[in-house]
């Protein structure tokens, strides 16, 4: 009798969907899933303005999109921009984060903030200020200026996963272990630290890739038509042909999805091979 009073059972409680789950799922459907789905459909719909469902399907827009004169150039430009930024970012961020973690742990909270700062600066403001300051100098309105700006802007995405990865491996003790075995700091970094924060490096690189590949404002304001990237082409086509723009969007999405899936896969792999807690029960 007493039991019935205290029911519903804990097991039932745990399986009852929670209100906030429903809210979250609704948000995802309304603000992400529906728009994305419609973009996919729009990119293959022959006509979709008179009926609820498209009147027919075609791959014509993809053909037109990939045939577009700037398609290859813009894809190449976007890749150059993304990959250069990743390279610059890795060279600067990894040693800095390692050095702060191992030698100056007290400065970690300052670095944490420094790496949040870029979010506080409107890209519009950053772009306009950069253009104004470097106008007339050799790097003014050059890809170098853009890469620098994009690096600053994407820095937090590289910093966070690398910092987390370093934090989770006890970099200081591993460094000391390496040193006691005769390795120099550089050898420790190359042979011990970097291989063990590999998942963080890949995640960071993919995040930077995703954000830089999709970057619009800085590119537009700093270089404009002189260095047309994929997002610039996409926005241009929204004014020319909505269906082709949708096809571009789908291509852009697909690249982002692939990057995300890679992050997911690497994250899981990283989890599996992480050191076990000594006191696991």
């Amino acid at each position, binding site marked *: 009798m007493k039991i019935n009073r205290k029911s519903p059972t804990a097991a039932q409680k745990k399986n009852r969907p929670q209100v906030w789950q429903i809210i979250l799922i609704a948000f995802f459907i309304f603000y992400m899933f529906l728009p994305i789905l419609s973009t996919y459909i729009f990119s293959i719909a022959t006509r979709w303005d008179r009926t609820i469902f498209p009147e027919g399907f075609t791959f014509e827009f993809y053909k037109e999109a990939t045939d577009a004169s700037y398609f290859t150039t813009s894809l190449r430009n976007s890749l150059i921009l993304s990959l250069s930024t990743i390279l610059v970012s890795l060279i600067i961020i990894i040693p800095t984060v390692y050095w702060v973690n191992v030698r100056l742990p007290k400065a970690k909270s300052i670095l944490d903030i420094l790496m949040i700062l870029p979010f506080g600066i409107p890209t519009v403001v950053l772009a306009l200020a950069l253009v104004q300051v470097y106008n007339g100098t050799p790097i003014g309105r050059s890809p170098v200026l853009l890469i620098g700006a994009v690096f600053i802007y994407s820095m937090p995405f590289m910093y966070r996963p690398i910092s987390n990865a370093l934090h989770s*491996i*006890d970099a200081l*003790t*591993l460094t*000391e*272990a*390496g*040193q*006691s*075995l*005769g*390795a*120099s700091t550089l*050898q420790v970094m190359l*042979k*011990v630290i970097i*291989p*063990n924060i*590999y998942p963080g490096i890949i995640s960071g690189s993919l995040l930077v890739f995703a954000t830089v590949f999709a970057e619009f404002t800085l590119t537009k304001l700093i270089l404009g038509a002189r260095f047309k990237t994929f997002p610039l082409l996409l926005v241009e086509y929204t004014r020319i042909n909505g269906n082709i723009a949708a096809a571009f969007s789908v291509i852009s999405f697909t690249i982002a999805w692939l990057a995300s899936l890679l992050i997911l896969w690497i994250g899981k792999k990283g989890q599996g*091979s*992480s*050191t*076990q807690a*000594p*006191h696991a029960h």
Partner: protein
Amino acid sequence: MAYLELKNVHKTFGNVKAVNDFTLDINKGKLVSFLGPSGCGKTTTLRMIAGFEQPDEGTIQLDNEDITIVSPNQRDIGMVFQAYALFPNMSVRQNIAFGLKMKKTPKVEIEKRVDEVLEMVRLKDTAKRYPHQLSGGQQQRIALARALAVRPRVLLLDEPLSALDAEVRVALRGEIRRIQSDLAITTVYVTHDQEEALSISDQVVVMENGVIQQVGTPQEIYRAPQTRFVATFIGTANQFFGKVGGESEVQCSGLSISTRKLSDFTKGQEVVVLVRPELISVNTSQPSADAGNIIEGIVETVTFHGAVTRLGVHMNQQRVVADITVNSAESISLNQTVWLSFKPEVCKVMAVAE
């Protein structure tokens, strides 16, 4: 001639004196433990020997060479960490080979040495596994093998067993001692566990608040503690506070304890008499006067420890603990009146001021 010498070593963090005027000679091939509670400076001293910290003052000499400011990777000193610190990305074999590779040892030699140390820690079949596939105890044995593979001049162990379960801890400390003896490698072992220090060491250095309290063999430390801290931190000791009453007598409240001759003390001086629980006999009837000091009390607690049973006996506003062995334990029950007796020779008398 000492092999490893620390001379007047000081180290301050902020305004905390972590290590205060530490001077110690360690002979070649010996295992020396640094023992003390958390924050006593034992780990800091070890890290200065390893080169991870620099002394503010003083020098560290190894084999007649001043290594005070030499980089850790050029000291030829092996280290085993509490958290194992195996490289997660490398197999057991690669972990052990790491130090040899850094020294540019020929490949054939590396293979030979790795097999040798794996044999030594009895984990030959784990060579191809990765650290996360091993238990904590196995990981620590591999960490030991890795440190030994480069044949360091000194081996440092920083609380190597603290993260392990009780059974593994006891087994592994036997292994460490066996390997250390076989190789006759000069070793410094840091621990907060007095049982570990007693059972494994040639010499124990007891520290408190950055200062050495006593240096001696485990037997010396246990049987002839020089300060009250050492007496109570290592093993258990009953403490009777009182004043020197005569040539070989201490007057405690309502109790007179016969001791050895108190030549170092003046009459009336405040002292404490320390008696180990295993040196107290428990009698169920009043013993004859030649049993030494006799105290009557009531059994308040009976705690079974396996080989021994510990009695808590209430006497005269004080609680005294005494250990009895298996055979006599059966006959004693709670709230029973017992007579505790101990010889004057087992009493250790110390001035209270220190």
